[in-house]
């Protein structure tokens, strides 16, 4: 019965008309209380809205973009924003709005893929290091070593060896942010493994892999989700920096980073080429960060910021 009750509440939460009233019906004892806290936070709701918009742009890019992102039209060079070209055109006559819409794809794909990659890699390392004391020191010294590099520098160095390609950007940034996740998972693992439920799981003879997955990893999930949100933001920022420097995705593909770089050369004559994609980048990262803050406050109300 309790099951159906929470179900109905949750569908009503997402139904916009009844939201205000229904949201408050989720009590602190409900397991969906965090959702209520999150949706009562205006910054988080705005952020979810903006991220949703960017996701729609990225997914539907070929329908939304009025022009081909790589369509060169010398007759329309360096046109300021107008009704035909919302964000103007660049020095090759390409439509800046269309390119910015396609650029959203790269940023989102990198953000999400790096989140998954670094979470898998980092969680695995963190679980092993936290659970098996024998390899702890070795693994954590390697993480120390990786963290000694400023993250963008390590990413550049890895890109230098792997060469520019989308999948290499994802690999490089997953390696860069894995230590961060590993450290977090290790500390929750150290805490969880002393808990009575883990001891009892061991006592009834469950295999380590099951204990790690079911009793330790799942209990680390809420701080992990928060951290993963921030990894998305870091990864989008880092990808744009790599693209800006010409060390990321190959130059032919429009990304927010390389559009800003192209635009810098035309700053005297055409500010719009750099400013629009840059604003997209800024607002997206801002929204993801604010969502992360909101999730943190909602999932762990004890550490609510003052």
């Amino acid at each position, binding site marked *: 019965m309790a099951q159906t009750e929470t179900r109905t509440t949750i569908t009503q939460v997402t139904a916009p008309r009844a939201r205000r009233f229904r949201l408050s019906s989720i009590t602190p004892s409900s397991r969906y209380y965090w959702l209520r806290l999150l949706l009562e936070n205006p910054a988080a709701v705005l952020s979810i809205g903006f991220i949703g918009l960017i996701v729609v742009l990225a997914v539907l890019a070929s329908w939304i973009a009025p022009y081909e992102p790589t369509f060169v039209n010398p007759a329309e060079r360096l046109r300021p924003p107008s009704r035909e070209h919302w964000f103007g055109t660049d020095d090759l006559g390409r439509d800046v709005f269309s390119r910015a819409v396609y650029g959203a794809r790269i940023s989102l794909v990198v953000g999400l893929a790096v989140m998954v990659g670094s979470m898998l890699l980092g969680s695995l390392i963190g679980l092993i290091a936290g659970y098996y004391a024998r390899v702890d020191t070795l693994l954590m*010294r*390697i993480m*120390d*070593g*990786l963290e*000694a*590099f*400023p*993250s*963008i*520098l*390590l990413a*550049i*160095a*890895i*890109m*230098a*060896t*792997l*060469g520019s390609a989308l999948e290499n950007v994802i690999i490089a940034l997953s390696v860069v942010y894995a230590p961060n996740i590993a450290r977090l998972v290790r500390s929750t693992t150290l805490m969880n493994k002393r808990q009575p439920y883990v001891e009892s799981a061991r006592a009834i003879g469950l295999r380590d892999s099951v204990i790690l997955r079911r009793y330790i990893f799942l209990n680390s999930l809420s701080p992990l989700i928060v951290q993963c949100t921030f990894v998305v*933001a870091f990864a989008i*920022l880092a990808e*744009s*920096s790599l693209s*800006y*420097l*010409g*060390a990321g995705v190959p130059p032919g593909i429009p990304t927010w*980073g390389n559009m*800003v*770089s192209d*635009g*810098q050369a035309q*700053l*005297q004559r055409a*500010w719009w080429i*750099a*400013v629009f994609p*840059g604003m997209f*980048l*800024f607002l997206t*990262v*801002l929204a993801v*960060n*604010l969502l992360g803050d909101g999730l943190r406050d909602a999932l762990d109300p004890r550490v609510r*910021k*003052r």
Partner: protein
Amino acid sequence: MTAYILRRLLLLIPVLLVVGVIVFTLIHLIPGDPAAVMLGREATREQVEALRERLGLNEPFHVQFFKWFTNVLRLDFGNSLFLDQPVTRALLDRVQPTGLLTLYSLTLAVLIAIPAGVVAAVRRNSLLDRLLMVFSISGVAIPNFFFGILLILLFAVILGWLPSSGYVDITDDPVEHLKHMVMPTLALSFSAAGLMARLVRSSMLDVLHDDYVRTAYAKGLPHRHVILRHALRNALIPFLTIVGISLAGMLGGSVVIETVFNIPGMGRLLVQSVTRRDFPVVQAAVMVVAAVEVLVMLLVDILYVYIDPRVRYGSD
């Protein structure tokens, strides 16, 4: 206390070793023959073989690593493939712009963060407190290269007050030097200033509720005195770590900012070397920055021993 410092120094060895292994291994992760990749398509078989020999790529991995690492400890990174000079020389030529840029940015960030954080904590929820929040949240979200470009747009293109890029040596013309450094410094310090200010604010808030602050007020000390002498001094203890971490962020950020403003520093050299496939330079630049960072964090930890007696007693 000496024992603590000694132990920290000893811990430095494994970390630097791991850093070295990572940097060294990178060159071996190049798909195919590193020597052929570095020389490009036009290289003859003899040239490739000669470079393999010069880089020692024909020897077993651990022998190569040992030789490379002992050379690195003597600050010998071999010769640049592109610049026709030793890598160490090339880096030394470019230390000044990077070092000064980082120094200016760190100073500016601290000078903004401490007063802003203190005022925001003392006048909690005031307009200034809210502005600080907006400032720091934007600082973290805006890519530093884009912020740099917005600065160029405003101060160079629209207002025409500052040169849009380039670098002037401080010994040649200090005034022009500073003019060229204003925008890079602002761009590099923005996010760190916001983060630091937030930290000062939250640790001030912690401290303001402590007993000794209440005692200070109770014995009739003026507000200013309590805030600056009693609260701030203790609030600044965790600040030191953020300064260390920010320095790392700035060393990384300077790679991007030097490219934005065309400053001939180590970061610019690193980016150029990546496109030139000049791997000895890439390795050296990355290694040097990581080593600096490790040393800074060590220095921070040691400073704690002097600043905060609790660390001293807690350690043994």
